[in-house]
């Protein structure tokens, strides 16, 4: 007898991505460059986050043609984004055979109150989080993988650093807490008690947590690994740089060998200009993607 879509199968898929880089791509050609450079997966999009930010308006699931084109171009797993709470976009991506769905704040939310009940799906999900409360709520809904929200499309690492540190600090606090304190901690965080209890018992999050939202250089990717990320998503950073191929390879190497600083120095040489960054304080609060979802 076989069982599809179990927790082990869905979470295990993300475990296989550990130590790797997942790259945003908008067509088959970029997907091939990413695969050649050693990406562990690609995220098929219509526009990268910095272009979504520049274009404004409502950002939706990518045209299925693009997703299909990318799926045919590479043998590594293909992820795609659905709007927060958009049941049908998620079902459509699942029906197309996408390997992982990102319920993403980069797109305009379809539902401002409810996230998807991700336990209902055979396909696994990745969701963004800024703290342990948000991480635990998403786990409660059935996400199989987490990532920091950061501030997508800015090329500014500061928010991803904040979110990674916050989640990890709260996990450490939880692990050292006495069990009778957990219910109150759950109330403060707005987190499901059972999820917190399991994290305390196992001494770690039950799913992997990648860094995302603002990674622009090899050193940024290595920094996030140093802070405890299991791997890295790079959105606009690669294909908005001067030499995407070289840049993609450099990010992969810096992620694998995040504590080998000579190597990071070497791979960072002559990469040309990284994407132009955005100072977070210049983004109006209503344009901050990290505040979408809760």
């Amino acid at each position, binding site marked *: *007898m*076989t*069982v*599809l*879509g*179990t927790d*082990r*199968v869905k979470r*295990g*898929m993300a*475990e*296989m*991505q*550990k*130590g*790797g880089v997942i790259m945003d791509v908008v067509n088959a050609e970029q997907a091939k460059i990413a*695969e*050649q*450079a*050693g*990406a*562990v*997966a690609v995220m098929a999009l219509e526009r990268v986050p910095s272009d979504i930010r520049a274009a404004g308006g409502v950002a939706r699931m990518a045209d299925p043609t693009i997703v299909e084109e990318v799926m045919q171009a590479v*043998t*590594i*797993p293909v992820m795609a984004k659905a709007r927060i709470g958009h049941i049908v976009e998620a079902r459509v991506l*699942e029906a197309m*055979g996408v*390997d*992982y769905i990102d319920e993403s704040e980069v797109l305009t939310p379809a539902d401002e109150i409810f996230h998807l009940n991700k336990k209902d799906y*055979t*396909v*696994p999900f990745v969701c963004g989080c800024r703290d342990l409360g948000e991480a635990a709520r998403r786990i409660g809904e059935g996400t199989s993988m987490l990532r920091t929200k950061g501030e997508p499309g800015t090329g500014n690492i500061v928010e991803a650093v904040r979110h990674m540190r916050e989640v990890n600090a709260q996990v450490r606090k939880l692990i050292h807490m006495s069990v009778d304190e957990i219910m109150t901690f759950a109330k403060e965080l707005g987190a499901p008690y059972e999820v917190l209890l399991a994290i305390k018992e196992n001494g770690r999050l039950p799913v992997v947590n990648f860094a995302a939202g603002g990674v622009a250089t090899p050193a940024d990717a290595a920094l996030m690994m140093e802070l405890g990320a299991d791997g890295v998503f790079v959105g606009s950073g690669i294909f908005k740089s001067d030499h995407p191929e070289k840049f993609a390879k450099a990010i*992969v*190497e810096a992620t*694998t*060998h995040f504590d080998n600083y000579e190597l990071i120095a070497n791979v960072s040489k002559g990469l040309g200009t990284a994407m132009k960054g955005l100072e977070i304080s210049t983004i109006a609060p209503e344009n901050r993607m990290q505040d979408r979802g809760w």
Partner: protein
Amino acid sequence: MVKVGVLGLQGAVREHINAIERCGAEGIIIKKVEQLAGIDGLILPGGESTTMRRLINHYHFLEPLKRFGGQGKPIFGTCAGLILLAKEIAGQDDAHLELMDIKVERNAFGRQRESFEANLAIKHVAPDFEAVFIRAPYILEIGSTVEVLATFNNAVVAAKQGALLCTSFHPELTNDDRLIAYFVEMVGDAKKALAT
């Protein structure tokens, strides 16, 4: 104590290390070629085989890994690791380490949504093993000296050839250590045999 390395370029490395240590051996993450000299056996973990191959090339691991296997030191490949071990890969001109006399089909059961768990009987190891298959490959053809250890719907999903062991599925994702314990025992036996 027997020392078992896990190739640590990418993938589910920590799970294997934990399992190795639960089986009473020392687990070492291998990130540099020089480290191969200090271990008695090696696990090629699950992950993305395409990515691992790029990193293997980049850090000049290919020949040293082939030599490691050539010396008769045991290697266990799980999922992507099985693909790395194979002599032949369906639909591709080139294979990777080409150590094991098997022909494999990548993503043979389908994409992620077709990934599954199933109960398997594994020869020498367990009559009832919970196997987790994730975008898994299977073995299409085997050479005359390869022993089939498990099949699923007539496809070969676990095999052994001398000191080489491979599975399509991920023993490291379960708490069932019987398969890793079997490999650790192979490593112990090979260490004694190579010493004499």
